[in-house]
């Protein structure tokens, strides 16, 4: 059940009606059942896996809190082992197997298994692990009610593609639940609509060009075609993921939950460091708190800092998918972060926002997307050689695609400068209604409706 389908909106409407029409004591059960139903519509065979991880981590949390330090560590390792074991098996087994096979001089399918990746496993295992580590560190009390914990893991607005919510953020809302205010509801409706517009009118339109290009790179020779194809993918992945996140945050607000921001106009960044403060912020935060800092962060000298940055980004890249392309994408960003840090040592002031720094950062991000989107390393090389070695060819962007991108840039720039969304929320109801109608109109005219294109991050 994709967020951009009629079925999902009917499902959401039913959940909202049941939720608010029920006595308060029943509401979390309604959310829990709804979340399992939502997950089950994808593939109900994986519900036992979700339940297993829930039981393991719930029990581990309770045991860690009650046990002595030695046993606490044991339970932590066991819990992390189970989470990483499941994630490793489902997500990375075939990747490892194919590499081992190639090293052994065998066909890449020699050790391969027919493994289906359970939807959202990368997100919910990271969420579980953050909970267990927080309990171990004493930053989070173990949850007593298994229903509460199960809901934390499978809450349907963010189950399949985040944002990765910290336990204390979620339980603050769950355990001290308050009905949403008028402002919450208004924001929720707007965020859902904006998210839908990002997905259907922007991401899916740019997806057509990106798919056309990456579907057959050889058929579109030349730098102009390559840059336009990669640009389109850059647009697609941002609007797709940010759109999903906006919808998740919006629908959570309608249910009285508050999720953290996940994107803050990343393509307006003036450096790669700035980019990562704006892109997939919940993952960046997770990687910082549970990987970069435990590795030593920047506390043990320059070389160690660069190494930690590199390792964090390499693993961050691998988190996205089991292929060398994602590893290279992570490594590329790790290297850029390290280089920026190195250059930063010789600068007196932080990087200022200029058109040149913005364009340069955007171009660097686009180059990174080549590895993210390409089928394999061969195709990555093929695209890069066109981008940098062939200045001929024709752009694949139509004029109105360019217009869409400029429209998005204008809206983002106005938001960055004037915070229009916050102002909008204080405007009279009639003005908000007209603004909402304009967003609906954009979906009506530009939204791809003939097929519901799945969200890119669902594959992770």
């Amino acid at each position: 059940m994709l967020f951009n389908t009629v079925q999902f909106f009917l499902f959401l409407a039913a959940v909202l009606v049941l939720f608010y029409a029920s006595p308060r004591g029943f509401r979390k059960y309604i959310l829990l059942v709804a979340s399992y139903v939502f997950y089950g519509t994808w593939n109900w065979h994986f519900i036992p896996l979700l339940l297993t991880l829930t039981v393991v981590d719930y029990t581990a949390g309770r045991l860690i809190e009650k046990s002595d330090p030695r046993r606490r560590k044991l339970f932590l390792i066991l819990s992390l082992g189970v989470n990483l074991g499941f994630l490793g098996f489902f997500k990375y087994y075939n990747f490892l197997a194919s590499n081992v096979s190639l090293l052994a001089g065998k066909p890449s399918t020699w050790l391969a298994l027919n493994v289906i990746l359970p939807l959202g496993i990368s997100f919910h295992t990271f969420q579980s692990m953050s909970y267990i580590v927080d309990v171990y560190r004493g930053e989070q009390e173990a949850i007593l009610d298994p229903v509460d914990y199960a809901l934390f893991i499978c809450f349907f607005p963010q189950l399949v593609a985040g944002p990765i919510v910290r336990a204390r953020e979620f339980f603050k809302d769950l355990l001290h639940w308050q009905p949403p205010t008028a402002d919450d509801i208004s924001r929720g409706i707007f965020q859902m609509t904006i998210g839908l517009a990002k997905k259907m009118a922007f991401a899916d339109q740019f997806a057509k060009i990106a798919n056309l290009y990456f579907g057959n790179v050889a058929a579109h020779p030349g730098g102009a075609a390559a840059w336009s194809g990669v640009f389109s993918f850059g647009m697609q992945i941002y609007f797709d993921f940010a759109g999903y996140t906006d919808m998740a945050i919006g629908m959570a607000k309608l249910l009285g939950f508050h999720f953290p921001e996940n994107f803050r106009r990343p393509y307006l960044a003036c450096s790669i460091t700035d980019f990562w403060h704006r892109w997939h912020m919940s993952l960046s935060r997770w990687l910082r708190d549970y990987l970069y800092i435990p590795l030593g962060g920047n506390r043990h000298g320059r070389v160690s800092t660069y190494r930690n940055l590199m390792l964090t980004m390499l693993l961050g890249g691998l988190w996205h998918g089991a292929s060398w392309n994602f590893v290279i994408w992570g490594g590329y960003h790790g290297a850029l972060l390290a280089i920026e840090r190195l250059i930063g040592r010789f600068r007196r002031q932080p990087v200022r926002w200029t058109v040149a720094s913005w364009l340069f950062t955007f171009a660097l991000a686009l180059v990174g997307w080549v590895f993210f989107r390409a089928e394999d390393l061969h195709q990555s090389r093929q695209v890069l050689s066109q981008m940098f070695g062939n200045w001929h060819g024709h752009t694949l962007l139509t004029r109105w695609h360019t217009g869409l991108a400029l429209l998005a840039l204008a809206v983002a720039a106005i938001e960055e400068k004037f915070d229009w969304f916050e102002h909008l929320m204080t405007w009279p109801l009639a003005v908000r209604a007209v603004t909402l109608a304009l967003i609906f109109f954009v979906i009506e005219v530009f939204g791809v409706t003939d097929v519901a294109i799945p969200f890119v991050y669902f594959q992770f």
Partner: protein
Amino acid sequence: MQPDSSSAFDSPAAPTGSGLRAFREAALLLILALAALLVLDGLVFRIGPYKKLLEPDSTAGQFELVLRREQEAQREYGDNLVATFGDSRMSYYPREAAKVEPQTGYYLRQAGLAGTNARVWYYMLRDLDPTASRYRAIVLAVNDFDDEDQAYQDADDLRVVHYAAAHLRLSDIPELVLSFPSWTSRWEALRSALLKGYAYQADIQEFLDNPPKRRAYVQLANGGYPHWTWDFVDSTKTLEGLAIDWSTFKVTFPPNATPDQIDTITNFLARRPAPQTGAMAAFRRHWMGKIIDRYRNSRTKVIFIRLPRGAVVRPDNLVKKQSATIRDFARLPNVLLANEHAFEELEHPELFKDGLHMNDKGNTRFSVLLSQEVARLLGPPAPNWQALPDHPRDK
């Protein structure tokens, strides 16, 4: 201390009044936004400028061009006009039909469009003839007076929302939507009928790609369409050599048959019979019935003609047809049925360009026969009739 999780949802809610107010405000926001969307959509696509910018070759653009051309023709042609409707097989030449006007007294004007059916004709007629009195007759061309269901159902043809998007009223929506058999089609129809931007999506995107080019083409089409259609000359290809063994459905294609000819012969002419479900009869009763109802108390007659059925005629015994809606209509006071055999002389391979359509020679002969048959059914023209000395389009 561990908060008691159950107490959160069990604790007293925020004041009920404020919660209700929040939801009331949200509902109002949504209702106002949807109303504003409908207004905006209507302003841009229904009464606004966009209708005049539609791609002339698109379904919606063709509908607008035909509608405009025929509205103008009503002013030019006087009182003895006959409007004809049909799909691409109703391919007579109005200029050839006009040549016999001095003898018949009636002008035939083509208001049909390729790919349309009675549902589209109804919406076209409603705007073309709002008072249901401007024509002496409305001719509806069908393949068969009996109802034969085919694999593809007219009722499920969503093109109506593209053809007639700008002309659908809010009050049309329930009937139009429910006239589609499947829920998927109903949803599509509802969405496009309610919000015309959906129906025009591809057109708008193409327009935005090069607005000056579109404007120039629209201008060209607006000026030239009546002449292009009047002067149109169809293909001279034939199907000579075509034979079909109906016991085995084995087709002997004409020598040098084109892929298009093979496709239309295989999929339309030599198609296997489909199960007879009654869907065609229901569709005809509904939409042709609505057209007949519009002209119930009018001077305008509704005439049904059976088109030349094909280069080779499908035997009657292939299907046991269960009903004949059009023959039933003939009992109604204002409805006339053309002689079923009036065009049988055209059912020859040398008069067809493919499995469905007549060629230039076929169309030319059909034009004259059609005019004569309509005149025979209508009788002498109005007493004040005078032949137009020079046909407006011949100038």
